[in-house]
């Protein structure tokens, strides 16, 4: 997938309060990605749903609406999950999508430091 558009930050990195929130979120993100990976590889659907739900609710407020909508899509697919091959693959694809999106933000922030 393409690198996320930096304009997707709806917060202003030059505003100190906004910068503080962005930094906090990026600092927490690797841990969340690990947790998503772990829940996904152990097929803990409930935990995966909870993690997606929290990211959906929180990410836009921290200036990451793209992560919010990827998490919302994942949460929606998990809720619709009926164990068919097709659905399971969809959830896996959305997990991948969410993780790679998060990772691109993480590496982007590392490069800028």
């Amino acid at each position: 997938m393409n690198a996320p558009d930096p304009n997707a930050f709806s917060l202003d990195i030059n505003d100190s309060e906004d910068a503080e929130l962005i930094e906090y979120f990026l600092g927490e993100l690797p841990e969340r990605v690990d947790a998503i990976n772990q829940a996904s590889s152990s097929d803990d659907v409930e935990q995966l749903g909870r993690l997606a739900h929290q990211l959906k609710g929180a990410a836009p407020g921290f200036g990451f609406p793209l992560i919010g909508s990827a998490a919302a899509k994942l949460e929606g697919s998990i809720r619709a999950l009926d164990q068919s091959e097709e659905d399971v693959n969809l959830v896996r694809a959305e997990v991948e999508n969410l993780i790679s999106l998060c990772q691109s933000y993480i590496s982007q922030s590392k490069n800028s430091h």
Partner: protein
Amino acid sequence: MVDPKDLQLDTTPVVLLIDDSQFVHRLLDARMRSESISLIGEFNGKNGFERAVEDSPALILLDLDMPVMDGFETLRALKEEAKTKDIPVIVLSGMDSSQDKVTAFDLGAIDFVTKPFELTELRARVRSSLKMSALMKMLSQKAQIDGLSELYNRSFFDDRFKEEYDRAIRHGHPLSIALMDLDHFKSINDTFGHPAGDTVIAGVAKIAVQECRSSDIACRYGGEEFVLIMPETSPADAFTLCDRIRERCEATTWAQHPGRPVTISIGIVGATDGAGIQCTPAAMIELADRNLYDAKKSGRNMVRASDINGAQVKIAKAS
């Protein structure tokens, strides 16, 4: 007594956030900084409920989707607990579901906000809820206050006396009440006019409040009659307090009629041990009224007190 500060909107209100997501706590911490509120937080429904009982916040922001005790369960518990039932609750939810909204409002939520929330909007909703609850609190307090004397009114007395009466019996604690009546009040109105009479009512009420301890409850009982509920007070101690009120009334000089002092007669009845109270609350008031009547009949400017079982405690008359 009602503290006038409670009627103002400008004390920093405490807002309790109950949400299992660290992200939401962090976000609101930052975004509510500009509001004149003090934000406290808990991470699950059980702790949140306990914190609300302990700290009585002005407003609660409650997440719905929480493990262990979810938001609806927490909301139900908050609305069932006397100490928290009047605290406004704004429900936060990651699900934009009509059924959830209906349930939340049915359970007593004041507002419903869907996550991810627009922070400007949430701040406005917080402000509006705080304002509304402060106004409602003010209204309910005003409804209990007598406008002229600024004491509690009769209907507040009726409810509160019943509560104190039940409490005294249950715990075997002392309880006394005093009925007070201004002597020859009608002649003040007739001679100096009703505004002068009103000043006397307000002035005597002020003396009573100044002499009362914070646990005493002073109410306007009727025209020129006041009633004092004194929890944890034996009739002998109630006598000491009321005789000070009587003395101060007598010693007060009134600007509108400096040559005409105002005196008061007081009838007290009480129990040193609440467990010994055998009569109804109404009968207790009647006993106090009988002592008041005796004080009037014996020359006024006098306090008469007796124990609820009939034993006379003390009589005092101006020297």
